[in-house]
């Protein structure tokens, strides 16, 4: 992950362009120049989540009942490995979110794909890699259905994917009868979760490679740029020649495929195609995406921020559990983090808008 070169510190210390006499818009342009306080504030905003993550690790390390065990558990490698499913889901989710759509079915698609992959192995005895590819493809197919529904029906993706999420869960329960698929899963897949290379768990390589891919797609390709444009203004995007519907549709296919990969990782780490556990990931992924938008590229969904957000959530939930808090802390903390992240980003958005425009908007011409 390289730090972004395009947008960071956009308003820092760049000399003001020479202004022609008399014609310069003194107010708004000049007001955007930050003072020292504003620069500090920006830096604080950018790295606040990293600082909070560091503080959390330190606090649990010092005050935990068994600091050594906690520090071991809080090891970034271990957490990344244990949160591999969540990282892949979240990074897949921010693809449609960047274009202004929400995919609430990712957790259920992941659950379905872990069951489907398990079934391919158990009933069709497919080779290891074929199963992995099939699992990802199944996810892509459900993403395709989501994308078609959102684009063709022109209904809010929030509602559509809330519906498909429930429908997918129903399908899984119908197929499995509520039972996990345990037998027939290749040993190589099961040991994958526990294996490591050069002291780094195998799944961390998968996660790192996937994160790099997501970052490249969102920040370094014209397609990623078009997603940002669509998310900013669909009307304007259409009028600069961007195929808005196609962009959104592809974003859903990609988030579905990511959920498929997450499902395979879920199968590898849990050792069973469990029909029940997929959907619990959705809300955490949404929370991590929004939390991530509060750091690095402040106000924008971004890959690095999402990963730090997942680490932050995970360290705190693990830490509180080590301090003796029961399981309910998971839901409570995640939910609270989601609300705080959204409140923060909304406030930030408002403040920016306010600062950007001391003068009122030009009249919109539509009567």
């Amino acid at each position: 992950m390289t730090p972004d070169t395009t947008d960071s510190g956009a308003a820092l210390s760049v000399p003001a362009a020479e202004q022609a006499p008399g014609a310069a818009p003194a107010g708004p342009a000049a007001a955007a120049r930050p003072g020292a306080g504003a620069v500090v504030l920006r830096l604080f905003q950018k790295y606040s989540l990293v600082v909070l993550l560091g503080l959390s690790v330190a606090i649990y390390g010092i005050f935990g009942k068994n600091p050594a065990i906690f520090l071991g558990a809080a090891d970034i490698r271990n957490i990344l490995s244990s949160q591999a499913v969540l990282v892949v889901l979240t990074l897949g989710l921010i693809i449609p979110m960047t274009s202004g759509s929400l995919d609430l079915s990712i957790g259920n698609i992941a659950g379905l794909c872990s069951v489907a992959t398990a079934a391919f192995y158990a009933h069709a005895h497919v080779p290891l890699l074929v199963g992995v590819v099939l699992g990802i493809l199944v996810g892509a197919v459900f993403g395709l259905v989501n994308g078609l529904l959102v684009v063709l029906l022109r209904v809010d993706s929030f509602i559509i994917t809330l519906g498909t999420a429930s429908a997918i869960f129903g399908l899984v329960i119908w197929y499995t009868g509520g039972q996990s698929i345990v037998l027939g899963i290749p040993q190589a897949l099961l040991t994958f979760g526990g294996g490591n290379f050069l002291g780094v768990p195998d799944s961390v390589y998968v996660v790192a490679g996937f994160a790099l891919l997501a970052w490249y797609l969102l920040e370094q390709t014209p397609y990623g740029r078009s997603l940002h444009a669509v998310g900013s203004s669909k009307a304007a995007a259409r009028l600069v020649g961007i195929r808005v519907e196609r962009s959104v549709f592809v974003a859903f296919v990609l988030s579905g495929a990511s959920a498929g990969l997450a499902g395979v990782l879920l199968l590898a780490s849990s050792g069973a195609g469990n029909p029940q556990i997929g959907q619990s990931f959705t809300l955490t992924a949404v929370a991590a995406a929004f939390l991530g938008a509060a750091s690095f590229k402040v106000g924008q969904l971004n890959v690095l921020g999402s990963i730090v957000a997942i680490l932050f959530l995970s360290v705190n939930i693990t830490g509180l559990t080590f301090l003796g808090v029961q399981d309910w802390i998971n839901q409570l903390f995640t939910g609270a983090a989601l609300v705080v992240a959204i409140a923060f980003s909304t406030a930030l958005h408002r403040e920016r808008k306010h600062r950007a425009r001391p003068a009122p908007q030009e009249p919109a011409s539509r009567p």
Partner: protein
Amino acid sequence: MTAVTEGDRSPALRVRSLTKAYSGVLALDGLDLDVRAGEVHALLGGNGSGKSTAIKILAGVVTAEPGGVIEAGGQQARSDQWSPSAAHAAGLRFVHQQPAVFPALTIAENLALGAGFPTGPGGRIRWSVLHKRTAELLAEYHIPASPRTPLGALRAVDRSRVAIIRALQDRDEAGHGVLVLDEPTAALPGPEVEQLLDALRAYAAAGQTIMYVSHRLDEALSVADRVTVLRDGRKVATVSTAGLTESALIELIVGRPIDRLFPEVSQDAHDEGALSLRGVHGGPLHGVDLSVRKGEVLGIAGLLGSGRSELLRMIFGAYPMLAGSLAIDGQAYRPTSPSAAMDLGIAYVPEDRQADALFHAASVRHNLSAGQDGRYFRHLLFRHGAERRDSARSISEFLIRAQSDRQPVQTLSGGNQQKVVLARWLRQRPRLLLLDEPTQGVDVAARSEIYQLVRRATAAGSSVLLVASEMEELAHVCDRVAVLKGGRIAAVVEQPLDAHQLTDLVNTSEAAA
């Protein structure tokens, strides 16, 4: 207005040393302002001159720095202690650019949302009282409508008048206080502007003091008794409009003479058809025949709703064309989508740049290359360096005033935002440029620069189809003007163009349509 010496009329509003700084930058610098009772006083200035800040301070929405004084309606207060309630108590009434009226509610309900609903026992609304009160107000202000009419059914000018009535309704007696209008005509279609100005003149004649903020100098000159001009947050002058010419006023606003607000019309427009339309149908258009010559600026004059905007969108593939044929440089062309139109070298600057052209939070650089970033993507790598160099070149070539190309585009002034949108297209050297109201909400200096850029493009071979509401602008900028009425081209006017003639043509077409 009769000549009255200053001592005869007490000021309805007196402001001394009004100052406001945003992050250390002075948006308003020691403004002194006297608005005499019973006069129409225009407040003029370019974008960022501080006039909007002044209005916001007077409304109490923005707090000024300490050290100044605001005095109105017998109330005096320190500038940093002025508030919305103080402004209201002092009799200041504001109608903003886009008045907060509710189209789905009736006129009576809209008025009641300002003054409160008359209620009976148990909080029940007494509709009969409300409707009677509203009917009286409508009669008093000569608006021919029933209190039960939904506001959305009124013409734009009448909606504005209702907003004005709402602002004025709860004042005890006429003649006290000041009605402050911020760009009241900006959202009105051309012919309705004059009607609103007539209404303002009538209120003024009845003794109402009016403060009038506008970009449109001809309006200010025709309706105001005196004007105060602001530039860079300072007052330049307060002058009487008697004997004041528009060019003298422009000089005050811009701070230097603009010899040619609108550039010379090119004489050597080639006679080849760059774009031709035959029998184009769709939406409000019923058979448009039109031919744009290479290198010319062809204006479209038409009323709001005449289909002028739809015509441009149709050529760009963003509005369905039901029948007819188009040809670009002699080759048949069927518009299907904006990207197909762009492939043929067609560019489109939409009317509503806030909603349809800008990506607000994105940087100037990303706004410039939006939709064309594919050209920087080679061998799986995004060439950020090339993009940066291009945007630096565009910023200087297209006269965009920005501190950096990484600045969010929403922090630029309206004129510079529009230049970004224009640069996005002109940097591609389009064959055909479709412009819909390119200077709306743009100050005088930026306006002249925008037309310079357009002329530069036509000199380089682009053809331009220009829609504008201001006939003055069309007459100055265009080589020819086509009048659109009843979904057809009613006339094509050649040089020499005359704004009055165009106004007449457009309006008589309304009668004929």
